[in-house]
């Protein structure tokens, strides 16, 4: 109440004093936009004038260094990135499905186990998990991850992916209308049979868009394989770029690798959006 009285009084004679009254709202918008363009142009001009273009080109976009990266960039580095990512995605998806089913189980112990796993592995940095994998053979002598370096990389990514996919798939399973299970059961299917034939296929369809996004973030996380101390034929994109950059004392390979990531991640991002839109239309 008091607030109102103090603010209305000085505002009351506004029409006579306020300068803004001279401009219509449309005019004010025009001025504002003009100002914004001016600021942007000033900033651009400053960058163009002040940056050391020669030096930048030498360090980040040296054609001959970029050329040297070439065949192996795709045949080894990108190929390995895809192996790690697809492997992690596949095992992460399957484990995530198992965890999601455990999370929705009527057996309380299964629910607790699933919740514990999900909370732990969603809460830890992916890098920490990779570092732990390095110490696995020390902690459990005699235990060796099958598949060597590939196996370790895939394991690390799968452990992380499983926790996220479990939550996504749980949401997907719960999004299938209750009537679907009732219809399946009333046709004489067992609970397990109904899940496999009716519920899970629909849940997977529902989670395809979010899962595509998870694939993208897994692809980026595959750079953490770097910390497993991989070398030679096992290097993925980031490690490959980093090694080449040190070798030439030049950052060009890192830029090239960055572009290579984008070649995969941006189309996948668009794919996810399109799938999402199509699903919205279908419902």
């Amino acid at each position, binding site marked *: 109440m008091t607030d109102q009285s103090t603010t209305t009084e000085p505002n009351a004679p506004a029409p006579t004093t306020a300068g803004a009254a001279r401009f219509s709202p449309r005019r004010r918008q025009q001025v504002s936009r003009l100002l914004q363009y001016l600021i942007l142009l000033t900033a651009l001009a400053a960058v163009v004038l002040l940056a050391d273009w020669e030096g930048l080109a030498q360090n980040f976009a040296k054609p001959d260094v970029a050329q040297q990266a070439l065949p192996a960039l795709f045949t080894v580095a990108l190929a390995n990135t895809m192996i790690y990512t697809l492997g992690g995605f596949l095992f992460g998806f399957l484990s995530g499905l198992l965890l999601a089913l455990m999370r929705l189980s009527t057996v309380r112990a299964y629910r607790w186990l699933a919740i514990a796993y999900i909370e732990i592995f969603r809460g830890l940095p992916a890098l920490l998990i990779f570092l732990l994998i390095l110490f696995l053979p020390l902690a459990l002598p005699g235990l060796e991850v099958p598949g060597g370096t590939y196996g370790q990389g895939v394991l690390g990514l799968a452990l992380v992916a499983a926790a996220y996919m479990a939550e996504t798939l749980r949401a997907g399973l719960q999004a299938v*209308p209750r*009537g*679907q299970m*009732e*219809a*399946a*059961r*009333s*046709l*004489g*299917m*067992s609970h397990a*049979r109904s899940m496999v*034939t*009716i519920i899970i*296929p*629909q849940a997977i*369809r529902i989670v395809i868009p979010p899962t595509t996004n998870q694939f993208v973030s897994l692809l980026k996380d595959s750079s953490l394989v770097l910390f497993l101390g991989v070398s030679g034929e096992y290097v993925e994109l980031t490690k490959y770029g980093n090694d080449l950059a040190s070798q030439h004392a030049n950052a060009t390979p890192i830029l090239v690798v960055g572009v290579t990531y984008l070649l995969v991640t941006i189309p996948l991002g668009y794919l996810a959006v399109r799938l999402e839109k199509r699903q919205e239309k*279908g419902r």
Partner: protein
Amino acid sequence: MTSMAPVVEIRDLHKAYGQHEVLKGIDLTVEAGQVVCVIGPSGSGKSTLLRCVNLLEQPSAGKVIVQGVELTHRDVDIDAARRRVGMVFQQFNLFPHMTVLQNVIIAQRRVLNRSRAEAEQIARQNLDKVGVGMKCDSYPAQLSGGQQQRVAIARALAMSPSLMLFDEPTSALDPELVGDVLTVMRRLAAEGMTMLVVTHEMAFARDVADRVVFMDGGVIVEEDAAARVIGDPQHERTRTFLRRVLDPTAQPETTTH
């Protein structure tokens, strides 16, 4: 006739959700070949009653016996028992990720272990019978509500049930599509199928049902021949309900409800 056991026998059935009692002791018998329609206001427990007959709802007390098998017995093989009971839902509940034909085939294959060829033949027969034979390769989303519901009927019939349950099968349909579904149900009744139908279609109940059961507040208020319950109801609650349903624009009466 006398030697035939009833298809459905419900004895003193109770169902409660926590404190809320939905069914307060229902006794009902459906003989082979009979069509019994259950009518009543919403919330009267009629859908719950129907869903208890194939144990989609677990009764709190009482017995449900279908063809001599007590479904409410703890050790009953409920999946085996449900095979003989077809169910048609208000919301159709077709499987949206399968074609119409697959919808009708899947349970035959997975539950009855029929061969692919046999299942497909039976599926096509039943789809033709309900008038959607030309839609075999469509997906449910491409069909009208009336077509979807008829596919759902065909899906249930393909399992060769000895009893069909209908849970307000026309309530989710556009008015102009109700007739197609009711026609299929009439034909089914004429063929001698035993049917337990929860419905708001009074004309269907009057013309097709052998008996009509009026439920209100979790109990059966009145149960008799269709013409009697709908044409000459004995209880005040039945009369009030029928007045409202048959003439919705009439002045609402102030009754205790």
